């Protein structure tokens, strides 16, 4: 039996973040402003919108980038 599969999967399990380190993702994120506004209207809830410009990379705040 080749043990490499289980060894790699063990290292994956250690490397995958869990628990409190994922607290950022407990916020009620919507993927974009349009989706947030649709949900806001439907659920009668306010929207908190963060606008970020970064000339070096148009990355996603929602995915943990700054």
């Amino acid at each position: 039996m080749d043990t490499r599969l289980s060894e790699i999967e063990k290292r994956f399990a250690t490397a995958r973040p869990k628990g409190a380190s994922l607290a950022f993702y407990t916020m009620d994120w919507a993927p974009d402003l349009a989706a947030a506004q649709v949900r806001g209207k439907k659920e009668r809830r306010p929207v908190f919108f963060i606008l970020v410009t970064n000339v070096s990379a148009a990355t996603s705040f929602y995915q943990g980038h700054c």
Partner: protein
Amino acid sequence: MLELLKPFIVTSWNGRRLSEMPAGVKKVFEKGRLGGDNVNIAFFVLSSEGEVLRAGIPFVQPGYFRMDSAAMGADMVRQLKDFFKDLDIPSAPKAPREPVLPDITTSGFRVFLTFGSNKINHYRTPVIETIVFTPELAALFARPKATKMLDAAALKPLLSVLYPPAVMDGMGGFRKLTGSFTLEPLPGEAAAVLTGAPTLILDDRNATTYTGPLELALRYPPGKPLTARGTFTALFPRFRPDGEIAETVSLTAAFETRPA
């Protein structure tokens, strides 16, 4: 800070410059009357009907706080409390909310990037990237009948997300991705392993370079989609403005196929 944002549906828009704003974002930005054409970060509160109730530019100056994350966090809480003052915000749901992670609706990979401690206290939140299986990528990861060699170009969609945040002088990409990989079927098992050691060179001024082992365990359960799990680990240098290396920071990526 998360407690303060609990009543809200939270969303963001990221672009290289304001001129890239899509129409819906531009409309909100203009209603916020923040002015200027070089806003780095701005906050807005919209009512459930989409009306802009408040707009502001937070004070975010790590240098002012001497990179003290606790001080920066406390000040951001103070700023948000001021920002929300006198707004009629509904109370937050009482039940704790489980993390909802960035995901894809089709098949592909989700990648978690975590980083070791560092002097400027960056990277405290894991970055989560997603990679949709293109037909080419799906074919690449089809169950191999024999060992095959792959080059970095074939794995570019996976390697391209192994990018540390907060690289201030790059353009978010790579000058070069190199390395060779082995995809090896395991005898007697519906499984394979992919191993290799890519070298990644960022497109920043210092051509930040890092390399390390990448490994994936691939399982091909009969009648079910591929499941793959694996890691990439490396140390990357962070440079001072004078080009000297200030420190090295560990980068760990955890790959998992989606849907699970």
